[in-house]
């Protein structure tokens, strides 16, 4: 046993896969302790906020301010408000209204703005311009107000009695606040989803639930498969025929279809995470059964089994002592595969909307589902689905890697 463990951890692939899995497990366990926010809490008004650091603007007004003179601060400011596309659009308008092209340099902001201010007239009709484009130019023109201004902005507060605006303070262009001194700052490394939930917190909770489902389903499937496989393989005869009949039934019926049907018939109300796990477990055992049965059939004619019989041991004793330990390593590998495939099965179900109820906990599949039905992929909101994909991939990858690593240990012929 010790030797086996030594061998197992000698396998590079196993260690790699194992570390990934352990890392995921640690994150899933520790994250909720550090950030105890409920994963399904809607924190954003609006959909698909991009990942970033969200700083409360109101609090920055009252936070201590510091003057920093950084080079290129003004240029950055202008560039963020006047994108390349906008400049190109301005040039197009100017050219269309008669200004020779070689006089326009879109990188020279001051010149461009100068030309624009002199010549732009919303009433001028440029042939071939759509209404939308015309509105765009009007909006652009308005937004250019004060682009090159160097004065600060004025903070004014409404006087409660007179209703008039009273100047409270000035925000200079060279003033900075220390983000850690601002009262309300929220880091959203993965932005928000369509409902306005913090994707990262949601993801961690979803990973936890999916792993739970995977483990429960995988364990159920392996236990059923092991028992049936042992009985069918060792006893043979009629018992074998019966069990194989059932197994073949389940093999032939497409697993996903079966899952969909059962899931649908359970109904939305009863579909919790555990229920789904049990359903998946009870529909995916057939593979393990066949594999175990094949192993047991090859084992039951071995000399040590015959000698056990000759020593008067009962069938149960022989199965538990002479057969089971010999297939244990195989069963461990089968279990790893069942767990990873259960996680994928749940994800498939959830994408179709037949997974666990959406009101309590998210699952990885559910997150994918939401991302899909709210068109995250067409809108380019990658943070709503790519991290989920990566997580699913990492979990399954790590488990399969562990499986391959174990493969090498238990089958010496595969060792390099």
């Amino acid at each position, binding site marked *: 046993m010790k030797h086996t463990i030594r061998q197992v951890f000698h396998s590079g692939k196993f260690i790699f896969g194992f570390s990934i899995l352990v890392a995921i497990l640690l994150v899933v366990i520790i994250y909720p302790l550090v950030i105890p926010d409920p994963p399904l809490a809607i924190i954003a008004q609006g959909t698909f906020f991009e990942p970033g650091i969200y700083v409360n603007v109101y609090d920055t007004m009252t936070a201590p301010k510091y003057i920093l003179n950084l080079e290129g601060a003004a240029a950055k400011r202008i560039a963020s408000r006047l994108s390349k596309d906008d400049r190109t659009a301005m040039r197009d308008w100017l050219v269309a209204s008669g200004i020779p092209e070689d006089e326009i340099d879109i990188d020279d902001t001051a010149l461009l703005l100068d030309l624009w201010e002199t010549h732009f007239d919303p009433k001028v009709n440029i042939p071939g311009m759509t209404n939308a484009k015309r509105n765009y130019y009007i909006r652009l023109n308005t937004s250019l107000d004060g682009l090159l201004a160097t004065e600060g902005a004025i903070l004014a507060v409404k006087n409660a009695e007179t209703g008039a605006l009273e100047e409270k303070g000035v925000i200079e262009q060279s003033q900075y606040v220390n983000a850690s001194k601002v009262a309300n700052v929220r880091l959203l490394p993965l932005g928000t989803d369509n409902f306005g939930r913090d994707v990262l917190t949601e993801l961690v909770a979803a990973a936890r639930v999916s792993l739970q489902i995977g483990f429960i389903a995988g364990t159920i499937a392996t236990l059923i498969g092991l028992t049936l496989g042992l009985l069918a393989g060792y006893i043979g005869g009629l018992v074998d025929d019966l069990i194989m009949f059932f197994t073949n039934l389940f093999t032939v019926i497409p697993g996903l279809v079966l899952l969909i049907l059962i899931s649908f018939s359970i109904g939305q109300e009863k579909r919790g995470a555990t229920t789904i796990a049990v359903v998946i477990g009870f529909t995916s055992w057939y593979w393990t059964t066949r594999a175990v049965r094949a192993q047991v059939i090859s084992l039951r004619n071995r*000399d*040590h089994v*015959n000698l056990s*019989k*000759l020593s*008067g*041991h009962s069938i149960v004793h022989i199965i538990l002592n*002479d057969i089971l330990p010999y297939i244990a390593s195989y069963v461990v590998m089968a279990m790893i595969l069942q767990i990873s495939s259960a996680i994928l099965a749940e994800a498939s179900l959830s994408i179709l909307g037949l997974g666990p109820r959406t009101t309590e906990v998210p699952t990885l599949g559910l997150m994918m589902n939401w991302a899909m039905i709210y068109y995250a992929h067409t809108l380019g909101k990658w943070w709503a689905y790519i991290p989920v994909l990566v997580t699913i991939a990492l979990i399954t990858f790590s488990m399969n890697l562990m499986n391959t690593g174990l493969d090498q240990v238990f089958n010496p012929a595969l060792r390099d």
Partner: protein
Amino acid sequence: MAERKVCLSGTGLTKIYGFGRTRTLAVDHVDFSFYEGEVVSIVGESGSGKTTLAKMLLGLTSTTEGDIYFQGQKRDISTQKKRLEYWRNIQAIFQDPFSSYNIFNKIDAVLLDCINMRGGRQFPYSKKVEMMTQACSFVNLKFEELTNKYPFELSGGQMQRLMIARVFLLMPKILIADEPTSMIDACSRATILDMLMQLRDEIGMTIIFITHDLGLAYYVSDSVYIMEHGKFVESGSADEVILRPKQAYTKRLINDVPKIYEEWDLSTV
């Protein structure tokens, strides 16, 4: 021959595997009588059905046709209890010492199983140790050196000898030895054979060797049965069958074994 009792005999013993087109006749209506204290060899090439016959004699494989008689009575192994009773009288040693052991159990388990089978489950541990030590010393092994070891810590010869110690503990009337020395070094072969002979001398055990090695059969047996395609083609005393074979198959078999005292005629193939 003096009045010898028949220990194990069979009439029309047959084993058929499969149905229809895949029907194979492994053992074909075989008759035999083995006497108490006799050493018998069943010799055949691979595929001759000798292993299947052995398994049938042991009760590990069912018979399709025919009857087996143990000590004159028809054998009945329909219930587990009856099987246990039968196995108190007939045991086996197999070819590969490495696969005869459960690699997850310590070797003590093998011997303790035998003590339990003889009804010694309730014996105090000290008595069990005494019995195991005695069994081990019969095969020139020291129990205190082997106790609590796993099978892979022993050598092939030691493992096979421990199998014999197991037989010593059980004292069956019949022992079926399936190629017991083919995976043992030549130098250790004599030891194994000597021990088996000693068992026969001490308790009058009938030994049935299953082998393909004509030399072994000749050296060790009183009677030899030659098996081909599930049938006994020739049988008789060892001298008769090996030195004065009558059937063509037997003659060919003997001719094909390399000789050192006589000329080995290679032209017959």
